[in-house]
């Protein structure tokens, strides 16, 4: 009996070690597929001197961002549809209207539509129809300390009362 106990124990030990070794190798192989480094573009981007922006709207394809200018105030609205991430398109309104956005008046010159599933947004990014579950994001704009360019922080979403006055 004693001999059998030892044999059983060694069989279990051997099997257990084998399973653990295979498991560890499996985990190591799978872990290698989870990226440690992301080569995504930086979230803080210099966009150019404020004077270069036209009155109204400018679309920045690389950042998928709309920059609005009204005199010397600026704000930035994301062009990424909140439904499934397609890039929305801007259409100019036939005549601009003024609405109160985030407690402050805002001149609305455009509206947005998504080509993938037909979501529609008003000029301040509010979702009005289609499957989009929430409004387009607004991002923080600032002025670079060194050369005075406009800077957007794509990691910093702001409330819709945000305006940058230069």
């Amino acid at each position: 009996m004693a001999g059998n106990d030892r044999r059983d124990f060694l069989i279990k030990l051997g099997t257990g070690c084998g399973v653990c070794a295979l498991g560890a190798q499996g985990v190591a192989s799978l872990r290698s597929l989870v990226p440690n480094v992301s080569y995504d573009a930086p979230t803080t981007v210099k966009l150019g001197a404020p004077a270069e922006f036209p009155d109204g709207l400018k679309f920045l394809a690389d950042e998928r961002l709309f920059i609005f200018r009204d005199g010397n105030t600026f704000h930035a609205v994301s062009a990424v549809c909140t439904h499934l991430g397609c890039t929305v398109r801007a259409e100019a309104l036939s005549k601009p209207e003024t609405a109160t956005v985030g407690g402050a008046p805002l001149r609305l010159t455009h509206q947005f539509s998504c080509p993938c599933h037909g979501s529609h947004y008003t000029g301040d990014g509010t979702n009005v129809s289609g499957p989009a579950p929430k409004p387009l994001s607004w991002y923080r704009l600032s002025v670079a300390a060194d050369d005075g360019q406009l800077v957007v922080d794509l990691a910093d979403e702001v409330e819709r009362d945000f305006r940058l006055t230069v």
Partner: protein
Amino acid sequence: MSLPEQAPGVRPRPFWSLRPRSDRDAGDAITSNFLLHWFPAKVSKASMSWTYSFWLGTITAALFLLLILSGLPLLFLYVPSVERAYQSVKDIEYVITFGRWIRAVHRVAAHGMVITVVLHLARVYFTGAYKNGIGRNQKREWNWVIGVVMLLLTLFLSFTGYLLPWDQLAFWAVTVGTNIASAIPWIGPDVRELLIGGRAIEQATLIRFYVLHIFFLPAGVGVLFAYHMWRVRKDGGLARADREEIAETSRPVAVVPTKTYTLLGVAKGTAPTVTARSLEAANTSVNAVPDLARRAMIATLGTIAVISIASVFIASPLEEPANALITPNPAKAPWYFLWLQEIVTDTTIHLGNFTINGAFIGGVVLPGLLVGLLTAWPWLDRSPREVTGEWFPRARRTQNIVFIAIMVGILLLTYIGMELRGPYWEFFWPWETWPSVPGRI
């Protein structure tokens, strides 16, 4: 020294023929031929009927074979890198001799396989072939589950292949598809990041989809296919064979002059008549070689011929190179996912301030529910075993109608997505022309 004597009739003879002159020859063809070793010795005529199974499983397998064959040359020609993928597909299309045809065969066979897999599933459903009939140790319900997994693998194979040309069509279909994954609560964004290897569709995504497409998914389908066929054999062939066995009772049959009957069989009737169940009767079953082999060859070669010829005339699309900055308008998913795209468009729910993204309901909950129901159906189906292997039996009328209704709904949504959705996913009747959309500002 003499060779040890072999037991007569045990060891197959080394030669075999596809035109056997005796039952013995027919059996040898199966036991000594690698390609035919998975065939039964005898097969009932009813289960070989063209109009019972429409041979959809065989056609699907033939398409899979054709996909592997046409994929092999493409492996040498395609470069899975974001800088060169598009150009290499363009070369396959316009520069390489026969490249256009090989790519067309691969693409047409892939679309065809999606169709035949679904038709095969529908056939098995309508005939209740996932039900166990009379055989011992049948586990047909598990073979159905394997089939559902292979359907999902087929769709994923098709979807991963869709990205590889790295054109606009590919890029945005995959953008939308992978964003659906991120609509899963809590783990969604992580699932998407693992799937595409980062936060944006980039080189990491391309190589992941490529490796899945050329190795892991086909290997998975291959292994499951082998198991699927093995289970068919273990379960006693097609469900139709069970049906024969259930429906038929013993009846007198003509004596086969060359066959030795047991004493019991002879003693039962007045010699020389015997009674037999249908499967044992010589007039209802045939040798697998040549009859089954011949039909399998017809189905396989016919499929290959049809696809190869059709591919001469069907051009494969290649749009502009992928551009993350411009979303085409309208941007559509692959056709077999358009019903889902249509649903994710229509299912965003607003309850006061509370909003559920349509991507979650239409992209996760609903397909999950459908696949779950499909998988569990053999255990939910309470119809009697007597209707196993019968087309549209009365006892299964309700479930067949529901199944048809769901299929028609999916087809309808697919049609709407394919034909009736224009710029900004607006609805247009076929006779309406799409408005010209202003370009990007």
